[in-house]
């Protein structure tokens, strides 16, 4: 139940982000959510899109340093306290979250995160009957 996220190595230099965005745009790739932190010399631009496999091939052929990473996307109600409840269950199982970002999707909140133990995280999600998104949801 993990989904594929693009992780793209980006130099902190003008023109590097637009180069990647233009490549995705030309191929008609729809970006669902993305995040880039304010690190020093370079960063990792993380992107959820409607066709990660195609986007990955495209960027790789274009000479971009890119990786497909497995992340979890939990669907939660867009009301106060729902994120806390969800994360509480994950951390209670002893799984560490390496990074997390969130966005709104069709009226629901989405928590995207990578863990240090996806198998365990998935078990926790199944046991607690938590709602998650698959790649099909973004097609």
């Amino acid at each position, binding site marked *: 139940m993990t989904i594929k996220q693009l992780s793209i190595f980006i130099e902190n230099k003008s023109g590097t982000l637009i180069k990647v965005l233009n490549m995705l745009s030309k191929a008609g790739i729809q970006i669902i959510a993305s995040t880039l932190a304010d690190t020093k010399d370079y960063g*990792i631009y993380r992107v959820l899109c409607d066709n990660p496999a195609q986007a990955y091939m495209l960027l790789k052929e274009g000479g971009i340093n890119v990786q497909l990473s497995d992340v979890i996307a939990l669907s939660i109600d867009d009301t106060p306290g729902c994120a806390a409840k969800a994360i509480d269950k994950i951390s209670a199982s002893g799984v560490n979250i390496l990074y997390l970002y969130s966005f709104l999707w069709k009226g629901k909140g989405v928590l995207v995160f990578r863990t240090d133990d996806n198998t365990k995280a998935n078990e926790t999600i199944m046991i607690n009957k938590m709602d998650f998104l698959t790649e099909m949801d973004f097609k």
Partner: protein
Amino acid sequence: MDDKSPYFHPEYETLSREEIQKLQLERLQATVKHCMNSPFYKKRFEECGLKPEDIKTLDDLRKIPFTTKKDLRDTYPFGMASVPLRQCVRLHSSSGTTGNPTVILHTQKDLDEWANQVARNLWMVGLRPDDVFQNSSGYGMFTGGLGFQYGAEKLGMLTVPAAAGNSLRQIKFIKDFGTTAIHAIPSYVTRLYEVMQEQGIDPRRDTKLKVLAIGAEPHSEEQRKRIEDMMGVKAYNSFGMSEMCGPGVGFECKEQNGMHFWEDYYIVEIVDPETLEPVPDGEIGELVLTTLSREAMPLLRYRTRDLTRVLGRTCPCGRNHVRIDRMRGRSDDMIVLRGVNIFPIQIEKILMQFPELAANYLITLTTDQDNDNMTVEVELEELFTDDYQRLLQLEKEIKRRLKDEILLTPHVKLVPKGSLPVSEGKAVRVVDKRKVYQ
């Protein structure tokens, strides 16, 4: 010529040390005599009161003053010639970034002898007339083009003057013509491999390649190994310089333990670049070469500025021509940073140990608030993680290993693949932006 013979010129390649020295003395005496036809050498010998007859032993070579690149510039364009221009058939010239360019003249015999040396080298690493040789090296004034062209033809190979650049066309030639050997600068071989990968071509499976000749660009043993692993064939180091003729002067045999410098064509000295005194075998010094067969422009004790050392004077391959280590840098490209002497090749050697890194790197020297600093930018081969911390750890580890090697800690910056400048000629490895103190 018998294809099974390991030697192209058995009569010269298998000479004993004594025979080599005897031949060298004869040829040195003839060369010095011939040099008196050159206005430059005639004047220089008169100035130091030296006569050709004074050269009675090989050790007498040390009575002769060194020749430098400055001498070549000062006598631009034809002041070094030892024959009338009418007898010259070729001119090569280096770029004149700091003043006059240097001019090297060749007679027809010089060209023939040059081709002989290159043919001898290529034969030595197993190439035969059935092979297809693709020369992916710059033509024109750069001697790597015509030098290998004539040598490969002399050996009898089908020779493709592909020249540098246009990687897609190069790869098409390699496949369509059944190329078995390529000559190129190391960074261009890396580039070819990258393009092959993009095209889904596996050099082991899809080509007939068996030999690479690499040279003209300093590279470490690690870089050679990486090239061999990529292409699945042996890569042999080549030494040449236009002042001597071009490529051909020295080449590795199958032992890959130093380049044989052809002592029937050159006298090799290694001297301390400061004192100009000879250094013992095994110690690094400046390579000094004397030509023994050139007609148009013989050079006596030419200071190459290349730093290297003698590895040995015998070899299991049966050739007793001196084995010279790969170039360790130039006596004039040494970086002196905060009192520490650093050769870019040392940094390259460390970077090549990291499989996460690509071959391209750039060293920048800057002065920040009166402190001199070094920044090493290096391209990431693959994004192997999506964890920022892992990238920081990698930087830290590179820094640590660099510090062990060069004794100071540079800034290290990972950059995306393809973001550093790649030139078709020699790669620019060092940019010095430091304040110059008067």
